[in-house]
């Protein structure tokens, strides 16, 4: 019996929801094809996540625990993944699409001499591999792709599948791993943490995103207030991260993060295709922009044509009222 192996991205004691989406999909495919579904945690405290994972139904959990995984480093991660592949002999290794998985997908595929598919929006099993869909051309076009191989490696865009709770009693296996610092060719000298906003943008249920129309501190304060009222993550268009108004890790778009929250509020964002590529799969899109012809209105469910400085204060007030 073959295995679908899901790599579980973790951060600060929490499993990323996008990884649980992928695991839920793999559980379903495993059930339908008579394969087993296994989860893989590679972290300095990998065993801490076993209890959380049991709620999401893998048949087996592999753990690789080593202090080296405290920070993301590609060389040891590729080594650990190769070990897990050797031990579990999977037909598919699936990752949530994150900066961490994007960093190693190609190298791991070359290392394993196998096929890799990046940033899939849907996938299913075929006789000898995987087929599915992925957005291309700045997400204007959907390409149907397929790959054969053992295993096929793939990353999945966040928001592509629902998380399904499904408590199980999986077998847990820890794999022996060692890595000496001498093997590290690159040196991680410093991590500059993203400042301010604590809500993980790619995981947030609601996102408030600022664009070029957000010109000064007054407007940025309103963005923060709206985000806090909605318990939303804050994102920004490339213009504002480049100008230094927002941290680069908050950039949404083809270059930055891809998000698919329940509610996306685009404020002063015109809707260039590079930005839309990163948010078009949001469930409900609200746009506030003073230009009635801004392309963002073509995709917004609710568009407000108006000056954000005049619209936001009553908008925030009304949401506060409704909350109470």
């Amino acid at each position: 019996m073959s295995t679908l192996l899901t790599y579980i991205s973790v951060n600060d004691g929490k499993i990323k929801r996008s990884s649980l989406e992928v695991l839920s999909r793999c559980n379903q495919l495993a059930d339908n094809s008579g394969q087993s579904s296994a989860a893989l945690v590679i972290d300095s405290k990998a065993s801490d996540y076993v209890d959380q994972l049991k709620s999401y139904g893998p048949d087996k959990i592999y753990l690789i625990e080593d202090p080296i995984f405290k920070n993301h480093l590609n060389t040891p991660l590729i080594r650990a993944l190769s070990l897990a592949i050797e031990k579990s002999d999977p037909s598919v290794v699936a990752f949530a699409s994150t900066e961490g998985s994007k960093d190693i997908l190609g190298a791991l595929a070359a290392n394993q001499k196998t096929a890799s598919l990046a940033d899939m929006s849907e996938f299913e099993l075929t006789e000898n591999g995987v087929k599915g869909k992925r957005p291309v051309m700045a997400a204007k076009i959907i390409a149907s792709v397929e790959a054969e191989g053992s295993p096929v490696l793939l990353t999945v865009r966040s928001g592509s599948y629902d998380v399904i709770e499904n408590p199980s009693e999986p077998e847990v296996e820890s794999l022996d791993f060692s890595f000496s610092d001498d093997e590290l060719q690159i040196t991680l000298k410093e991590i500059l943490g993203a400042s301010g906003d604590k809500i993980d943008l790619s995981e947030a249920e609601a996102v408030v995103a600022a664009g070029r129309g957000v010109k000064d501190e007054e407007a940025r304060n309103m963005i923060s207030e709206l985000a806090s009222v909605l318990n939303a993550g804050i994102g920004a268009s490339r213009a504002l991260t480049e100008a230094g108004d927002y941290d680069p890790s908050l950039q949404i778009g083809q270059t930055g993060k891809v998000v698919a929250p329940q509610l996306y509020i685009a404020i002063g964002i015109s809707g260039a295709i590079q930005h839309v590529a990163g948010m078009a799969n949001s469930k409900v899109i609200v746009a506030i922009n003073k230009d009635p012809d801004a392309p963002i209105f073509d995709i917004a469910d609710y568009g407000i044509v108006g000056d954000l400085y005049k619209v936001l204060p009553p908008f925030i007030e009304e949401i506060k009222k409704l909350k109470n």
Partner: protein
Amino acid sequence: MKFYVCIKQVPDVNAPLQIKDGELIQDADRSILNAYDASAVEEALVLKEAHDAEVEVVLAGPEKAKETIRKALAMGADKGTHIVTSGDSNNDSFTYAQMLAAFFKDREYDYISCGKQSQDTDSGLTGSMLAQLLDLPYVTNAVALSYENGSLQVKRQGDAGQEIIALPSPGLVTCSNDMNDPRIPSLKGIMQSKRKPVETIQAEDLGLTDLSPKTKTIGFEEKPGREPGQKFEGEPDEVAQKVARLLDTEESLI
């Protein structure tokens, strides 16, 4: 210091597109230097100006992609190599990485750089595949580069923040377009580029026995468009209130 920048010609994603019988059709004149690669070229040129580096570009692609090499030379790269692939090839990231690896096998260099992804397919695989095939240390998604104490200092955008990494030579780095604004070639640059050497290598002469792609694209469809929803104009107080209430009553999102 010797810098190689791998570049690719891609369709301009801003140009109109059509799908006919499952094939993507685009006006052939709208092919451009991949924006992420343009940032890699720009960054190599900045390092060249500060540290006396030599910058060569290498491109794998069909005959017509030669114009994209000229573009990089006009920006200021010193030399180009064109690995000519047949026009109808189904190359995927891995076949490109294999061709480039075969090209680099017997070459000397300090660093190889490339864009972090191509703007047409957004796969972002070729760079790290190439590093693995050449057994090089690598850093992806660089947002800033500098050269200090004999190694490249790379700032990369990670999931939670930015990581500062020292990348020894030889090494490979993939570049985000957030690191710079690529220069527009000057008239002088364009004139000079015509005299710069471009070496041509046929892909089949690289000595690769198996260049079959591991992934296949079997069709294209237009992304189902979102229906434009309701648009409100008028008194800011009124429209703001109205939309906030709709988010509550219609969508249960408040």
